[in-house]
């Protein structure tokens, strides 16, 4: 087999060599033909530019049409709805600019393809035109900045709600832990030196406020319609808590506590009945069936979104959004850490 491949390669090289010789011999008859651009080259490439430009712009809409059904469902949080609106307006603008400028580019590339004997127009500058495309982008950008920053300030402002739920998301290679404040509504303080097999998140055993904290893995629950404030910590390297359905993300940085807050506005059950989510899950389950995997139901997902090591791709946690009553029932069933702390 290897011999055959070797013979094939040798033959290929001989063929290529012969081909080159033919080309080189023919060159003597057509001087300059290998590099100088003829009218027919210009005509071919000019037309190809037009065709490409056309297909390129069409393909944007084709891809949008085909793959937008795979996009995340509408935001499941109150600030997320605003982000979605802002996203849409920005996207309309961006697509418009993309289409118009690419259309001009490829059209001009076709229209002004070179011909022998034609002289180009000497047009070196025009202050009015240049002013136009300095001022118009500046004005448009001013609006983008104003709206963007207004929302940014709202989203990142400090949480003022006295009834908020505070949850700590604790990241380590390669899983997540969620910690609830418990009855006293205060997260116990931590000390990374006290981490051991029984004290996974490094609770400070001298701090009594931590004794009623509740620690969960694999999935955590949050109540719909209430402000949830997340405090993020990391044990080892930088991770990022990414909750795409809620339009929420914040890095978890060792040595720091970062935070992000949002108000979930749709329970997991409601999402599962959403027509868009139903078609999304149908697509997903179809793909899973092809791989021979069991169908799944929709779930909110927490992902790690900062490279953190070999199993970065596999570091997630399921989020359940439910009514406040269900949430309280679930929370009541969880065990407090007292037993660990007393050790």
């Amino acid at each position, binding site marked *: 087999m290897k011999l055959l491949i070797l013979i094939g390669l040798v033959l290929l090289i001989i063929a290529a060599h012969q081909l080159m010789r033919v080309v080189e011999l023919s060159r003597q008859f057509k001087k300059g033909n*290998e*590099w100088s*651009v003829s009218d027919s080259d*210009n005509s071919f490439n000019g037309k190809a530019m037009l065709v*490409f430009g056309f297909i390129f712009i069409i*393909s944007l809409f084709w891809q*949008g049409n085909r*793959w937008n059904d*795979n*996009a*995340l469902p509408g935001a499941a949080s109150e600030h*997320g709805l605003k*982000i979605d609106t802002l996203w849409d307006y*920005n996207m309309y603008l*961006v697509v418009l600019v*993309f289409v118009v400028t*690419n259309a001009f*580019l490829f059209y001009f590339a076709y229209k*002004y*393809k*070179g011909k022998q004997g034609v002289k*180009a*127009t*000497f*047009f*070196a*500058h025009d202050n009015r035109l*240049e002013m136009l495309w*300095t001022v118009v*982008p500046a004005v448009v*950008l001013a609006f*983008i*900045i104003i709206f963007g920053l207004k929302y*940014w*300030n709202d989203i990142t402002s400090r949480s003022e709600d006295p009834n908020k739920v505070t949850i700590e998301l604790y990241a380590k*290679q390669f899983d997540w832990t969620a910690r609830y404040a418990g009855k006293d509504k205060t997260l116990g303080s931590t000390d*990374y030196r006290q981490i051991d097999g029984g004290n996974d998140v*490094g609770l400070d055993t001298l701090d009594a406020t931590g004794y009623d904290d509740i620690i969960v893995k694999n999935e955590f629950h949050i109540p719909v319609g209430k402000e949830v404030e997340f405090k993020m910590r990391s*044990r*080892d390297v*930088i991770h990022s808590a*990414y909750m795409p359905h809620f339009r929420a*993300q*914040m*890095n978890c*940085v*060792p*040595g*720091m506590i*970062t935070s992000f807050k949002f108000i979930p506005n749709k329970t997991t059950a409601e999402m599962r009945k959403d027509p868009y989510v139903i078609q999304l899950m149908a697509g*997903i389950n179809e*793909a899973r069936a092809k791989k021979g995997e069991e169908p799944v139901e929709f779930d909110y997902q927490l992902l790690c*979104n900062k*490279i953190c*090591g*070999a*199993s*970065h*791709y*596999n570091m997630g946690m399921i989020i359940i959004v439910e009514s406040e009553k269900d949430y309280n029932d679930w929370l009541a069933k969880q065990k407090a850490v007292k037993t660990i702390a007393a050790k």
Partner: protein
Amino acid sequence: MANAHSADLKEHVGHHDHAHDHDEHEESFVSKYIFSMDHKMISRQFLITAIIMAVIAMTMSIIFRMQLAWPGEKFAFINAFLGDKWGKDGVLDPNMYLALVTIHGTIMVFFVLTGGLSGTFANLLIPFQVGARDMASGFLNMLSYWFFFLSSVIMLGSLFIEDGPASGGWTIYPPLSALPEAMPGSRLGMTLWLISMTSFIVSSLLGGINYIVTIINLRTKGMKMTRMPLTMWAILITAILGVLSFPVLVSCVVLLICDRSLGTSFYLSDIYIGGRPLDNVGGSPVLFEHLFWFLGHPEVYIVLLPALGITSEIISTNSRKPIFGYRAMIGSMLAIGFLSFIVWGHHMYLTGMNPFLGSVFVFTTLLIAIPSAVKAFNYITTLWKGNIQYTPAMLFSIGLVSSFITGGVTGIILADSTLDINVHDTYFVVAHFHIVMGLSAIFGMFAGVYHWFPKMFLRMMNKKLGYLHFWLTFICAYGVFFPMHFLGLAGVPRRYYTNSAFPMFDNLVDINEIVTVFAIIAALAQFIFIFNFFYSMFRGEKSPQNPWNSNTLEWTTPMANIHGNWPGSLPVVHRWAYDYSKPGAEHDFIPQTVPLADGEHDGGGH
């Protein structure tokens, strides 16, 4: 050697034609081809090194794209490259996946698009286009290449060590990159990465200082700053950015080396890893991110500006029209250069940095869109009513304008911190920067190679192969990177070894397959270029004096590799570089050495 060389130069200044014949006898193989101080040879050395590095980085991308499209499938191809350790049974190892992603990024950003692009074209074009015998210091120039070579060798060497190369992403954020317990790639591989980058930075600084000095001091008579071709402006601004920002990366890297080896805590605090708490307290990874991106963002423009400069020159020449808005082009490059220093925080909106600081960076970042828009519109207007000559270089230049726009507009979305929240670190970002920085810069580099190949190797490249190369590359490049936007909209994070771990990404298999198929075709298409390049180097048709009918000074030097570039006295410049199709002129181009006629205005006036 250095003395002999500068003596040659002096002899040349204002002297006789036959001086150069005399030089060539003296040159040994080593001084001509290896430790050369001639800017033309150094430029060729940079280019060929960069091509080799690019092929390696491209092969890496094919390996990890195959894993992403067909996770868990067995490929003899992967096993052949990576062996049983990293590609057991032809399945890529997750740690090796991260390593490939990391080294692919590092090589492409630094070795191909910084060292390769600036090194090749700054060295080739500066003396030619400003009318100088050589660079200000041929010796520093030689050192610049050899530090670049050394860093390339170390970087490639790190691929062959037991624990594998650095694998914390090309941004090497600590603590991941600082702690050997965190991943195998943070052991010896990371040390080699840091040493290699330090050597690279030395190369970049030696080169950059040389470029600046040469452009400022060695312009020939009449070559006013406002008569310089835009390539020179672009390279000058690039070099200034590099000289101001690369030293910050050195300090960033040195502090990381201290944290890794000397037990300091610049970037480390409160860490429990490998079953024990570390003693380091008080540092912050966010400090690293600030230092890194203080270089990292100007770096984007260090990559992009030379490509834009090359394209300005090529679009004007091949449209047979002056570049539209010459001074606006310079102004916008200066504005981009200045702004690039105060936007680094847009990489850090979600790092826990104060949100108010984030707002400031939103403002400065979006400002960059204005000079960028000016540039894009000026290119398009340059095409308007032109007489476009479709050389392969021109095709790639138009490709650049398209990718600059297409990738640029998504930058407006990402610069907006509010919108960044949900697409930060997803494939939307991957699509954005590959199109706006990767494609634009590589298209500019290809354009430059096709355009100036005759000045490098005195022969012409084959146009038909050039056309084939362009169309395959252009179509496949968009085929690779455009669909990635939709992966981002589905919330797929970057640097995931596979998208099959979470059911929510199961329906994206077809996008990943399409991307990979296009990537494989694009990679194969590059061999057309490589064949054309090496074949034409030896067997291509001999180049005439001025094949593209261009105005700039490099086309007035003889088509021969001689020391000092011009055999007689240096040319005198009388006009700007863009008198194409000037009304009343006999030809559609007027070289810069032609004196102004009576009543003729310089610089675009009639």
